[in-house]
């Protein structure tokens, strides 16, 4: 430092020291803490929550309970009146800051920590409760760290414990970003320095790209190593580098937007994502392959595929093709089917390996793909109905005509359209494909494709079968027109799927485009009858399709429907509960969240069953549902009053009787017995 600089610094420091509090100098008070009590007049024998509202200066951050590779947590020294006790300091969900390979678990903006004070019973109203607490904490920028101390004081008076609306709102906002108890226990395993933590989390609950497991157990994980998040059904698996050999791992699973869950993981088996070698059950794989083959075969009679296939078969019979030509077409068709099925399956496996949550028919969750399919199927249906002939464009389907190129396209199309039909038949086999090693999964997709192609393959290679086909004749035209009906049905089903994805607006747009395409194809057909050229009409048809796909991609997906609830259930509120009880109705109240596996299982197996619904109806039972997915503090308080930290919570209010807390695992019998007992 230059002499001038040194002198200047000395002067400045002297100046600042002479005027304490005049200006905030570097290295002092880079973070201010305010103490707020939820009520200033807590009742004797109750608890009061104290908030430490920390506000770091811009660019500064405070630390989580486990600060990460460096840093320090907050330390409190309470000075409490006799009889009062303070609970542990609780921390909101943190964020992370990686500087030059060193991981910090921090709070970048303002944050609030909470602690609970127990007020002893028997204190007289009006007793003064002076509380002082010294907080030692660390506040840092990316470059500099400063340990700071705040001596805080707050004066409480024993009173009625009433919480003002303003305080309640402030505390509710703070509580929203605190980790919620997940309820179910997680498991972890450590092998070859890699830790895998399997956290129960419903497959239907959303997670964001920011999903991260913040370890509280020190040394269990390597903090700076990236975490790989995959979903395996109702499990969320975090994979990262291990740091040691812990007995248990505690931490917070953050899923984005300040939402997080307290997790305790005990040592146990965690299914390893497909690694290759170890123990493949080949007999099980063969059974799955057989199942897939059968499933593919069944697909041939589904409305999506049947018309295409039967016409292809008839064209083969009509052409009186040679043996070689028939085989060539059969093989080309099979190649088309198998390639598309494998491509879709491979894409899905790839996306899943990358952590995305996709299932079979994942392409059908994209409205643009649905619209494309809708227009394609409509075009085929109109073609079958005889509106136009698909002769000229040599690149397109040539569905009813011969040639191995046409056969290949037919196969590819059949496989692509068949996927929406796969669900009910193929569920089990495809489910297995997602957890098996990738090459077994590919085997299952292969089975599916071969099954789908099998009838045509047989026709191609067994002349006897071809001879069994009815003789071509005028009836074929009628048959073709009849086959357009299942094709139109498929189009309707696709329009319905489109509606599900994009709402009524998207469906109306899709149908309008379908009409536009139909008009274009009608004009095309008229021109074909006159023998006029129709290149322009084909161009317009392609244009309409492209424009439609572009339009539909701009449609917002409607807000997700509210959580499924039992029939006739109403949202929970304490006023509604009181009103129902005043009416003299028995009430079943349950509290659930999208991220709670136990809740979902109970709802599927007990609450939402017909037997329970009818028992409740007979008993005139009102059902109230509290959805705690976003951690609504009002519901949280109600849940806490019943000595539960979180969901599930099941309450039964018999007519005029005392409320009863039901077990966390419900059975149908337990619920149907309620109205009578």
């Amino acid at each position, binding site marked *: 430092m230059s002499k001038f600089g040194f002198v200047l610094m000395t002067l400045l420091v002297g100046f600042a020291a002479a005027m304490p509090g005049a200006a905030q100098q570097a290295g002092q008070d880079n973070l201010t803490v305010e103490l707020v009590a939820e009520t200033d007049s807590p009742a004797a024998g109750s608890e009061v929550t104290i908030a430490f509202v920390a506000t770091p200066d811009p660019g500064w951050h405070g630390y989580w309970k486990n*600060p990460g590779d*460096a840093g*320090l947590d907050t*330390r409190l020294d309470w000075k409490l009146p006799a009889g009062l006790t303070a609970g542990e300091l609780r921390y909101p969900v943190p964020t992370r800051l990686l*500087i030059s390979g060193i991981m910090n678990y921090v709070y970048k903006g303002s944050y609030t920590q909470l602690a609970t004070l127990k007020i002893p019973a028997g204190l007289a109203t009006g007793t003064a409760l002076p509380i002082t607490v010294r907080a030692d904490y660390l506040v840092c920028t990316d470059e*500099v760290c400063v340990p700071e101390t705040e001596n805080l004081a707050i004066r409480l008076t024993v009173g009625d414990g009433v919480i003002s609306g303003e305080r309640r709102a402030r505390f509710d906002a703070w509580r929203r970003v605190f980790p919620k108890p997940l309820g179910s226990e997680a498991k972890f395993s450590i092998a070859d320095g890699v830790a895998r933590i399997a956290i129960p989390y419903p497959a239907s609950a959303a997670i964001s790209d920011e999903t991260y497991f913040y370890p509280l157990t020190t040394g269990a994980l390597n903090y700076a190593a990236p975490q790989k998040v995959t979903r395996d059904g109702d499990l969320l698996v975090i994979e990262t*580098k291990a740091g040691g050999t812990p007995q248990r791992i505690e931490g917070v699973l953050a899923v984005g937007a300040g939402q997080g869950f307290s997790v305790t993981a005990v040592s146990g088996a965690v299914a390893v994502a497909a690694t290759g070698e170890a123990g493949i059950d080949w007999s099980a794989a063969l059974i799955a392959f057989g199942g897939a083959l059968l499933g593919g075969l069944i697909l041939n009679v589904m409305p999506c595929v049947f018309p295409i296939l039967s016409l292809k078969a008839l064209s083969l019979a009509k052409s009186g093709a040679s043996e070689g030509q028939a085989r060539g077409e059969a093989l080309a068709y099979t190649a088309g089917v198998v390639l598309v099925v494998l491509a879709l399956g491979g894409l899905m496996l790839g996306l899943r390996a*990358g952590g995305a949550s996709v299932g079979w028919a994942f392409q059908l969750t994209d409205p643009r793909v649905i619209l494309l399919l809708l227009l394609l199927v409509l075009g085929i249906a109109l073609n079958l109905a005889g509106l136009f002939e698909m002769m000229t464009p040599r690149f397109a389907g040539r569905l009813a005509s011969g040639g191995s190129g046409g056969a290949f396209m037919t196969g590819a199309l059949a496989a692509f359209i068949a996927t929406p039909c796969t669900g009910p038949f193929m569920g089990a086999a495809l489910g297995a494909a997602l957890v098996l090693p990738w090459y077994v999964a590919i085997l299952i997709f292969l089975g599916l494709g071969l099954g789908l192609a099998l009838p045509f393959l047989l026709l191609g290679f067994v002349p006897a079968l071809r001879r069994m086909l009815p003789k071509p004749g005028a009836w074929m035209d009628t048959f073709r027109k009849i086959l357009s009906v299942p094709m139109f049905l498929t189009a309707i089903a696709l329009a319905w799927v489109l509606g599900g994805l994009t709402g009524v607006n998207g469906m109306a747009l899709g149908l309008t485009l379908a009409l536009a395409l139909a008009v274009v194809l009608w004009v095309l057909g008229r021109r074909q009858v006159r023998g006029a050229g129709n290149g322009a009409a084909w161009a317009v048809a392609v244009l309409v399709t492209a424009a439609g796909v572009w339009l539909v991609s701009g449609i917002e997906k409607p807000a997700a429907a509210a959580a499924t609830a039992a029939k006739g259930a109403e949202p929970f509120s304490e006023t509604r509960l009181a009103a129902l009880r005043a009416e003299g109705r028995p009430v079943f109240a349950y509290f659930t969240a999208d991220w709670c596996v136990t809740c979902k299982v109970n709802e599927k197996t007990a609450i939402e069953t017909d037997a329970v619904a009818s028992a409740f109806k007979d008993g005139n039972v009102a059902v109230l549902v509290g959805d705690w997915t976003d951690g609504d503090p009002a519901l949280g308080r109600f849940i806490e009053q019943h000595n539960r930290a979180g969901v599930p919570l099941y309450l039964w209010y018999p007519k005029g009787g005392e409320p009863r807390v039901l077990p966390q695992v419900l059975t149908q019998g337990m619920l149907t017995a309620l109205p009578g007992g």
Partner: protein
Amino acid sequence: MNRVIAFGVAMIAAMAIPAAAEQANGQKATDFKLTDASGKTVQLSDYRGKTVVLEWNNPGCPFVQRHYESGNMQKTQTAAKAGGAVWLTINSGAPGKQGYMEAPAARKWVGDSKSAAAHYLLDPKGIVGKGYAAKTTPHIYIIDGQGTLRYQGAIDDKPAARIDEMPAARNHAVAALNEIKAGKTVSVAQTQAYGCSVKYAE
């Protein structure tokens, strides 16, 4: 999709590289060579046969300052020296960051702070720091006469202590040195280091 690919690459990189960038207790500590504040080159393997203590240092870090202002660090260094160990202080701060010093400033700091370390080593590129996965200042590593790493972690068990509370702490470094000298296994061989993060170059 791009993000998936990028993530995959990052994942592979993260899983593959740290094997070389982390020292495990009971394994041979990686040899290194650094220049000290007086321009002398120091190599870890030169001290084969002696116990070596590595202390990561950043004079600008309040945690380091507390240990030096209270005399706790110098006391630990003196105790190590008396027990026949060699104490190497390493500064892995990058130029422009807090605690970075050129050799003259480092010599001055060693004198002013009355450090009893054998050498004050400069590691501005952070190569040795990252090779040892040093994360905080202070961060202590103890290597025995056979070159085996025996302790890594914090200097003591009182991260938040004020100067007047520091004598009550368990000094992990002194305890480990005594156990190594007595031919025992180190009872507390790994602890969570605390302090400021090492100010590595990006």
